[in-house]
């Protein structure tokens, strides 16, 4: 009914070209046959996709990345789920402060946190690099887990929980049978978002590399600094596919309006 301003519309379109155009260019480049990056490619091939699997390092660091992201996610959940529950369910002294405390890993520069972890957790506390990596990733995932789950719990009517308890269920049983199923979609979204945050992380992982230990982004970073061929473009396309698939999954669960509300 209302006419929208054409100037605004054009400006918006141009902005989205700026945001997405480069990603589209990567996609096209990844199918090029030349051994250097060119756009548009002169001939097409899947050679660079094959090259990912032939190059040493990508597959093994991918495995590390997946393990660290999943295991770190579990640790963050184990710590974050009760914290989110406590923060939403109860009123207590210092609640506001603790709320921001649990979000604070987002505020501390990643590169500083990475360095501090290297200096103390690995060198002073004598943890292995792998453990340090796991701890670092758990820390950066924690705010995502707590925030998303807490916002889910904010919409949960805790009188339902009391009803279950009044019917004879134990507290723990109530949590697993009543609370969790009701915040399921928020829980899954939290896990997915935290996973992506960890999977794409550079700032922490870059300090936690050692013999046989490195994550995929770090491997990519090192590769880009030494070679300039479409291998990274090919990996980028695979990573974008993963992101798109996970995003579609979240959209099904929560709807995209979720992102503007938080």
């Amino acid at each position: 009914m209302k006419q929208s301003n054409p100037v605004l519309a054009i400006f918006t379109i141009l902005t989205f070209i700026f945001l997405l155009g480069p990603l589209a260019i990567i996609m096209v480049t990844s199918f090029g046959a030349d051994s250097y990056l060119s756009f548009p490619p002169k001939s097409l091939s899947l050679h660079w996709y094959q090259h990912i699997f032939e190059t040493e390092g990508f597959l093994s660091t991918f495995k590390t990345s997946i393990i660290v992201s999943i295991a770190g996610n579990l640790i963050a959940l184990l710590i974050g789920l009760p914290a989110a529950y406590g923060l939403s369910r109860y009123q207590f002294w210092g609640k506001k402060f603790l709320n921001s405390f649990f979000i604070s890993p987002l505020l501390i520069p990643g590169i500083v946190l990475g360095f501090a972890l290297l200096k103390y957790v690995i060198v002073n506390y004598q943890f292995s690099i792998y453990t340090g990596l796991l701890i670092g990733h758990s820390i950066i995932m924690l705010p995502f887990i707590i925030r998303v789950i807490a916002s889910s719990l904010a919409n949960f009517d805790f009188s339902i929980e009391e009803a279950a308890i009044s019917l004879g269920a134990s507290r723990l049983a109530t949590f697993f049978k009543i609370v969790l199923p009701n915040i399921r979609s928020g829980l899954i979204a939290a896990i997915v978002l935290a996973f992506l945050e960890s999977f794409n992380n550079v700032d922490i992982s870059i300090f936690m590399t050692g013999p046989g230990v490195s994550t995929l982004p770090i491997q990519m970073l090192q590769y880009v600094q030494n070679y300039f061929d479409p291998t990274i473009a090919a990996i980028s396309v695979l990573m974008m596919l993963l992101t798109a698939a996970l995003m579609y999954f979240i959209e099904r669960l929560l709807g995209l309006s979720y992102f503007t509300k938080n």
Partner: protein
Amino acid sequence: MKKNKAYLFLLPGLVFLLLFMIVPIILTISSTFKDQGQISFNGYIEFFKNKYFIQVLMNTLKVSLMTTLLCIVISLPVSYYISRIHGRMKSVLIALSVFPLLTSAIVRSFSWMIILGKNGLLNEILMNMHVIREPLNVLYTPTSMIIGLVHLFLPLMIISLVGVMENISDDLVQAAESLGASRFVAFRKIIFPLCVPGLIVGSILVFVGSLTAYTTPALLGGKQQVISVYLYQNAMTLNDWHAASIVATIMVAVTFVIVGLMNLTASKLNPRGENS
């Protein structure tokens, strides 16, 4: 009873963050004020005498400031447009802003290496159009860093502003229009002042994000260093952990000062009352 229970739920998280985040960072910071067992500020004095470091710091602040300003200028009209449309188109545009946000910073910076490189797309197009004869050196300059950072943080700004603008009722714009304001005046006098707090929060995220970003400057910045890259090199290449700790402390301090300042302005500018 209830009180104790709440703390019990929070305890594992508290211990974890204290042990692995707060303590290491505090120790890192406190180590910079010690020199052979004595309290000293020598490290800092030396640092701020170091012209190269000052240049790196200024460079970082300049790049972050430009990035933030560009993000504000671009995101305002775009977010306004998205917040006022309805239906499928809106979900599509939001999805298209979220997608880059969840995509790896390496992937996104890498795309600009393809575009801005000496033999990259931009130079190819400009040379074919005979706008330039010699390829431009855009990559590895502050400009390429700014482009990469704007690309990195713009979606964040757009999404947070759309959230704020959606909460501003259409009625307010219509009320202004019925009183004689044009669309533009209604935006300037009603929508804009009401988004200032959201704009400030978004700007903090972008500014602090650019200030501490590592990947994008590392890939697009070349020899133009920023503090995060400087920290990394001191720590991992030069093995000068004392210097790295000082840089880390300065980064934390700058971040906190900026966040504090912006929060203060935001609370002062906060419009009274609800947006209805």
